[in-house]
């Protein structure tokens, strides 16, 4: 408990520094906010246009597809807000700055993952939450407490998978000193979860469900809400999330041993 409180305090210190840094350029913050809003609204516009031109997509109505899209955005935004640090890891490995992280009495993985929260995403996250709440409330028939609790439980499950992937990317960053395209590849793969997994052909569907389980990360919470997730799928999703989470920690320990501090 004491350690947890200590790390929360440390995170707030990081967050304060990052907030001051990111908003030192107000115009950049505004442009990022506009860009992220445009991205969200444009995709939503395309889905709305689809609604007028087609009835279903892979067995889902377009209203249901929008729930997948909103769920993807929730997990994506939360991951971006808290784990932005991974994006800048390459520079730290190449310059040897990571040595300073290793020498400090703070868990290195915590520092790498959560050391640079992204406040630009916070700006869009708040209106997004209100919109999602409103939309789900009116689009999902027979919304009950069980569905809502399970939805949030599997959002956490999805976030666990997301954390695991960020750790894997950090591992690749330490071993190869290259992160940029790896993290973007993860983002591209996770964006496949914007749509129901059923739109993808096999073996791609299997790949993004079990090998790189970005499909489970996003689609399970949405399917829970729509009452289309059998218990066996929920169990599989939980097992996969715990497995990749544990594997990511093992990989991190291994990667850290391979860090040579060559540039410092």
């Amino acid at each position, binding site marked *: 408990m004491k350690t947890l409180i200590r790390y929360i305090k440390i995170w707030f210190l990081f967050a304060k520094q990052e907030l001051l840094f990111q908003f030192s*350029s107000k*115009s*950049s*913050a505004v*442009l*990022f906010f*506009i*860009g*992220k809003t*445009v*991205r969200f609204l*444009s*995709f939503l516009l*395309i889905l709305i*246009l*689809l609604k007028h*031109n*087609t*009835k*279903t*997509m*892979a067995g889902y109505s377009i209203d249901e597809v929008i729930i997948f899209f909103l769920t993807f955005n929730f997990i994506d935004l939360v991951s971006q807000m808290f784990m932005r640090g991974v994006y800048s890891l390459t520079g730290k490995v190449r310059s040897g700055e990571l040595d300073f992280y290793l020498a400090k009495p703070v868990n290195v993985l915590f520092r790498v993952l959560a050391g640079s929260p992204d406040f630009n995403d916070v700006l869009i996250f708040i209106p997004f939450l209100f919109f999602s709440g409103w939309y789900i409330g009116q689009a999902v028939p027979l919304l009950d407490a069980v569905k809502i609790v399970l939805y949030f439980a599997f959002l956490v499950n999805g976030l666990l998978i997301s954390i695991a992937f960020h750790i894997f990317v950090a591992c*690749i960053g330490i071993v*190869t*000193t*290259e992160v*940029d*395209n*790896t993290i*973007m*590849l993860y983002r*591209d*793969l996770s*964006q*496949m979860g914007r*749509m129901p997994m*059923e*739109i*993808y*052909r096999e073996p*791609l569907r299997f790949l993004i469900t079990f090998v790189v389980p970005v499909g489970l990360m996003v689609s399970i919470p949405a399917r829970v809400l729509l009452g289309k997730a059998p218990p066996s799928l929920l169990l599989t999703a939980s097992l996969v999330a715990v497995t990749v989470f544990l594997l990511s920690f093992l990989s991190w320990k291994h990667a850290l041993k391979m860090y040579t501090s060559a540039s410092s």
Partner: protein
Amino acid sequence: MENKLLLNSLKKYWIVAKVSWINGFTYLTSFVMFRVRQIIQVVVAFSLWEAIFASTITAFGYTSAQMFTYIFAASIIGYVVTSSRTIDVAGVIHSGDLSLYLVKPLNFFLFWFSRDVADKLQNVIFSAIELAVLFFIFHPTLYIPTHISTIFLTLFTVGGAMVMFFLINTMFGLLGFWTPDVWAPRFLFYTIMFFTAGSFFPLDIFPNSIVQALSYTPFPYVIFFPTKVLLEQLSSVEVVRGILFTGMWVGLCGLGVFTMWKKGVHSYEAEGR
């Protein structure tokens, strides 16, 4: 004598392009990841439309074959037009490394354009292999232009789009003279371009008013317009109008680059060196 000078000049930029080509493979993991990303983006677009056409014969006035053909052609044109190394220009200016370029017997813009050409060539070669694989998976209907003039028109519009895209990106790079925060405006530009260039869907799926409004911006001329020219889906008047607009945007962006460069170099203080 003049021929020799021209040859030497071409040789310089050929070497720049060659070095840039080699640089592209320096970080092999990143290179492979980038290629995989390109495949994923096309697969997502194909899968999305495949799912849509599973329950309808036509959507937005397109049949499934027409849509797949469009996405296939747009992917090829997108690979050629949108690959660029000018993303590094701002860093070069802001770090003070520009000083090294200013004292070299090189034209700064031709230097970056040569790098762009190498990047585009790399993209075209690797994407040809990737698209061939995707072709065998999704079987899009390949449209062979019926007029030889279409090939020339397509090359012309793709050339225009390449120059326009290079100039726009260079302008974002030149912002580095005044601010280190060039990523934010570039992010906004790329976000808008993602939805309005026509890489993943033809822009005419939007309501007519939006298509009309977009036609006054440079975005449709990056991918949508050259792709429609290649697929011979535009009238002569629309082709001429598109070429004129591309030309206008090339002119405006060229003027923008020229003005920014002139003012920027004047105020440049080689900070950071």
